């Protein structure tokens, strides 16, 4: 375990880093809700301050001799006998990398939003929630214990709900927000149980138990070695904790909320539903990798869920017509890669892909946002020839797409290759699944590119977006290109690895085949897309129904949950709680008082009789003494 040492200066920096967006959010809600300019400036200032502090801390970290530093500064937040919750910041390479991504990409997206949301009526509310989101995300990332992590986890879910439903007057947006919230609650239920179980096994007496990451890591292996914790219990805890990432990182079968989340504003999709929040699940897996790694069953479950999510969502992206939804499925698929990497035993590969994905997927989303801004259209069939009317946007989209495909030299190539090499070593089936996913990825993004950006225009009057939008696009494009040369795995403590030529060749061929096919079908019209759809009608319609998972959930909710479970609860409430419990007490009181009221006749003579009996009783009592 690394030594914990934190100078007052870095402590101050890290607290500023965490709290700046919260202060900005509070100020916006208090003073800026009717002042658009102030709100945007406050949000940007908060975010850039955070990013500046993160860079400063990073600079300090690079001066350390070892890369295994872990700085912590925390305050006691609430304390009951035997249980203390602290709130603080934990800075190690993992959290620092994630902080840089969140604040860096966040700053660019905040800047982009000022132009994208210019005409929006709820401009200030948008920035208020976005700042609150930044704070919540940093709460997760910098958390030194499970409780703070869970609080941040729920807060980002809440902000995500608010932002998906930003245009709440639109029924589909309101529904999508609700769906995201509900699906995440299902997952978080398991997650919370996992945290409680972890607390339960972390010691024998209440005073010894802890939810602190480092204390757990120091203590649990000994407890397991001594046989105090059975391995089956450990597997259960691991699987329950994995429920959290399944929900937040939208893995199968709880992925259904993420495509619908595209109802929110596009910068939100870029920041929350592509670059940062959905990556929180992967971050969590990396943060407590040692815990998951102690149970092989948990680890292989994680790997398979990730691998299946990757290929199943890549298939869905192939039949999607909505530009943003294609990117959403692509996000699901890439998150699947990351989860699979963790499951296969390399959190560093997962974090590496998370970082590069944050760059190129934010880029793709912001480019898509620019397209929507310029054309008010997001169905790729109605777009076309954007390459000429929107050169900057198209260029950025092309770079993002190539990085996503894993074309050599771009950031996506390095990180995806790290995962493929890992899969090649560990699990042949998952390896081929991942390679097929790479091919499919190239195909669907090629399809989006050839349909929307080349070909003929469909009469939409496209215009290039203002520089305040293309500026962040260019920066992200540069990051997407150079992301592979920044030494991210080295910073996380991974030695430089040699290139595995066979894997490189396979992945490049898969991407090449995918791109070539999409070019032949959608660029050259060498094969007719309509004929292909007709020839593959059955699998096509199955994919268009999204494997029927949404229908299954609907059927489950309406026919089983509403009828039986909710029906029983309603009956129990009406019959037992209301009739016997609430009304029962009322009736008992009523009749008891009726009985007592008989005493009160209102006739003086009755009272006199009572009085007489009382006096006689008293006299009798006195005489007996």
């Amino acid at each position, binding site marked *: 375990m690394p030594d914990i040492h934190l100078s007052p200066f870095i402590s101050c920096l890290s607290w500023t880093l965490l709290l700046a967006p919260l202060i900005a959010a509070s100020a916006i809600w208090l003073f800026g809700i009717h002042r658009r300019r102030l709100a945007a400036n406050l949000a940007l200032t908060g975010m850039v301050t955070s990013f500046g502090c993160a860079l400063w801390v990073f600079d300090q970290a690079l001066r350390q001799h070892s890369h295994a530093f872990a700085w912590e500064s925390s305050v006691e937040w609430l304390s009951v006998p035997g249980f203390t919750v602290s709130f603080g910041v934990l800075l190690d390479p993992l959290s620092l990398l994630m902080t840089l991504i969140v604040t860096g990409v966040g700053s660019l997206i905040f800047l982009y939003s000022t132009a994208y949301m210019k005409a929006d009526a709820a401009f200030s509310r948008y920035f208020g929630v976005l700042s609150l989101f930044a704070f919540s995300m940093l709460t997760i990332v910098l958390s030194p214990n499970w409780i703070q992590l869970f609080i941040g986890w729920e807060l980002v879910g809440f902000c995500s709900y608010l932002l998906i439903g930003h245009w709440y007057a639109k029924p589909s947006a309101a529904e999508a927000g609700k769906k995201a919230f509900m699906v995440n609650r299902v997952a978080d239920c398991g997650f919370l149980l996992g945290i409680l179980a972890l607390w339960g096994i972390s010691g024998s007496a209440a005073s010894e138990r802890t939810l602190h990451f480092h204390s757990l890591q120091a203590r649990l292996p000994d407890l397991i070695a001594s046989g105090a914790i059975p391995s089956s219990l450990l597997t259960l805890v691991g699987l329950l904790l994995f429920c959290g990432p399944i929900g937040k990182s939208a893995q199968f079968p709880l992925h259904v909320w993420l495509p619908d989340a595209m109802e929110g504003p596009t910068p939100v999709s870029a920041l929350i539903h592509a670059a940062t929040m959905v990556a929180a699940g992967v971050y969590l897996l990396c943060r407590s990798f040692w815990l998951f790694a102690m149970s092989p069953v948990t680890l292989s479950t994680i790997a398979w869920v990730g691998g299946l999510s990757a290929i199943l969502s890549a298939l869905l992206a192939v039949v999607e017509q909505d530009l943003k939804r294609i990117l959403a499925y692509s996000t699901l698929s890439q998150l699947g890669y990351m989860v699979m990497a963790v499951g296969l035993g390399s959190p560093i590969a997962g974090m590496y892909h998370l970082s590069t994905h944050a760059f190129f997927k934010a880029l793709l989303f912001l480019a898509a946002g620019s397209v929507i801004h310029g054309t008010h259209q997001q169905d790729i069939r109605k777009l076309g020839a954007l390459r000429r009317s929107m050169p900057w946007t198209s260029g950025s989209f092309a770079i993002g797409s190539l990085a996503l495909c894993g074309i050599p030299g771009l950031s996506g190539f390095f990180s995806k290759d790290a995962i493929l090499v890992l899969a090649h070593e560990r699990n042949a089936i998952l390896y081929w699944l991942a390679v097929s996913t790479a091919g499919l990825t190239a195909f669907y993004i090629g399809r989006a590119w050839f349909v929307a950006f080349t070909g003929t225009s469909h009469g939409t009057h496209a215009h290039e977006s203002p520089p305040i939008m293309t500026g962040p696009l260019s920066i992200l494009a540069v990051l997407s290109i150079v992301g592979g040369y920044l030494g991210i795995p080295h910073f996380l403590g991974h030695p430089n690895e040699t290139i595995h030529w066979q894997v490189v060749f396979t992945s490049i061929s898969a991407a090449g085949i995918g791109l070539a096919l999409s070019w032949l079908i959608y660029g050259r019209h060498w094969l007719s897309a309509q004929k292909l759809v007709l020839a593959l009608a059955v699998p096509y319609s199955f994919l268009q129904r999204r494997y029927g998972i949404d229908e299954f959930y609907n059927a489950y909710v309406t026919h089983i949950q509403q009828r039986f479970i909710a029906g029983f609860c309603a009956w129990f409430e009406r019959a037992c709680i209301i009739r016997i419990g609430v009304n029962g007490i009322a009736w008992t009181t009523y009749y008891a008082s009726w009985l007592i009221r008989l005493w009160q006749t209102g006739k003086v*003579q009755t009272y006199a009789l009572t009085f007489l009996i009382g006096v006689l009783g008293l006299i009798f009592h006195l005489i007996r003494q």
Partner: protein
Amino acid sequence: MLTLTHYLIVSAALFAMGIAGILIRRNILMILLAIELMFNAANLAFIAYARAWADLGGQIAVFFVITVAAAEVTVGLAIAILLSRQLNTLNADEVSRLKG
């Protein structure tokens, strides 16, 4: 020879009759009369004790009781008149406005 006990027995009998009158009779005037009966039972007991123990205090108390009884009767009769005017009845059973 009439002893103290004889007087007290008469007094107790009068008192019991008074109580019975209050409890049984329904006419307010009769109830007032029964109350007078109880006063006089008490007066008789006072006088009997005053005679037996040769103490004038008992007789003084009786004068007080008679005075108070006179005052009480005025109030009682006033209530009776008001009742007959307001509720048009002197039946105690029909007067149950004290009921909670």
